[in-house]
């Protein structure tokens, strides 16, 4: 993380030693971008760690739409800028200024676009309800009744927890889409494309609904247990 600042310090020393500042302009620009990315990523990472610690002490609220704050994206975006700025600094250091701009642009687009499309495709917001978990994709939502959650499969360590939700009866999930339009159903169908027999598995990424992965996993398990106490056995 300190690399761009070391680079900037070196550029400063080079200017002090008599190198024309104009020659180092593009290099400094990329190093600044990289440094900015490092700072943003580090600060966001700390804020997320604090958020996770706080959430692990509190219960997840029910009947409230839990939203994912947009600043959460800054951790990955900052990391991306850090790496892209450093790589783009290499051709800039060799005097290939315009090539370095191409490198920076391509890295940002090729890495940021998949990140954004993942955020678009995954359920961003969640509402815990008595009847089940409501998953929101913008204005579209669908209901996952607790009894249709057959398994919660954790992936990764506690501090970086994502999980697969294994759901039964894909057709019922799609039928619960609101608003009940063809385009809304198509969006839910795309989300639920990983079929398992008549069911489906759904990867719940980091910080879905702005909730720490481990907290979310435990809250969903608690919802399932509550359902099993009210009615049939746990699947």
């Amino acid at each position, binding site marked *: 993380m300190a690399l761009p600042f070391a680079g900037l310090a070196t550029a400063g020393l080079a200017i002090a030693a008599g190198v024309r500042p104009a020659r180092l302009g593009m290099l400094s620009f990329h190093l600044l971008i990289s440094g900015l990315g490092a700072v943003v990523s580090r600060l966001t990472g700390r804020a997320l760690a604090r958020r996770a610690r706080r959430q692990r002490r509190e219960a997840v609220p029910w009947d409230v739409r839990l939203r994912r704050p947009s600043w959460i994206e800054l951790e990955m975006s900052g990391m991306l800028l850090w790496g892209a700025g450093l790589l783009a600094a290499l051709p800039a250091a060799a005097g290939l200024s*315009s090539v370095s701009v191409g490198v920076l642009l391509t890295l940002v687009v090729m890495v940021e676009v998949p990140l954004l499309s993942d955020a678009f495709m995954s359920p961003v917001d969640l509402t815990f309800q008595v009847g089940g978990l409501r998953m929101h994709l913008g204005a579209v939502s669908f209901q996952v009744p607790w009894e249709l959650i057959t398994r919660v499969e954790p992936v990764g360590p506690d501090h970086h927890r994502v999980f697969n939700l294994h759901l039964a009866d894909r057709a019922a999930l799609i039928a619960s889409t609101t608003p009940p339009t063809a385009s809304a159903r198509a969006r839910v169908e795309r989300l639920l494309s990983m*079929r*398992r027999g008549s069911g489906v598995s759904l990867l719940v990424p980091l910080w879905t609904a702005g909730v720490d992965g481990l907290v979310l996993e435990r809250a969903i398990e608690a919802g399932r247990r509550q359902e099993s106490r009210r009615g049939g056995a746990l699947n």
Partner: protein
Amino acid sequence: MAFAAVAAAGAVVRQVTLLLRRRRERAQRELPVAWNVALRDPIWSRASDAATVIAWGSGACAVVAAFGFVGVAVGMAATFGLLTFGMARVMGGWEARALTFTSDGLRVHFRRAELLVRWDNIDGVELTGAKHHLVEITVRSAEAVLASVHPRTARTLRQATYRLADRDGPIARIMFSDWTAGLAAATLARAIRDGAARGDRAATN
């Protein structure tokens, strides 16, 4: 100009390979899958995906170059090429390179190793993904699959473990993308189901 030419060539190759794949898919519907032969995706078929990437990437570079930013376009092309090549290398290490249908089971070949999924170990075969372009087989015993890994090194075992996704006790799933072994997903799923049925019959007799 050079970028536009590369983009055009990529687009032509993509269209031709897509047509050839469609014809191949139709032909495969009527023919049985060959056994005891390592089935691989032909080079021209693999070129289809690469051509798509090249066509889009060079097209974007051509637009930037047309505005006079040739250096920027060169930087884009270099980065695009390196990223694509790097991703292909990484993915190539994990994906199945070939499949062999044998009387013992389905032999899955990787870059440095192979494993055997015995027919009687297969619990189900499904087509999944948004366009039904993925084949997923459920195995009853992941341990039996891991025990068949050859050669057995830490690296090959890690590769095989990665293949066995979605573990639930002894059960695991193995996924194959479309055109693994040069077979369309539907053909591959049918062939594995047939193999598993054959294995069941052999076990009964």
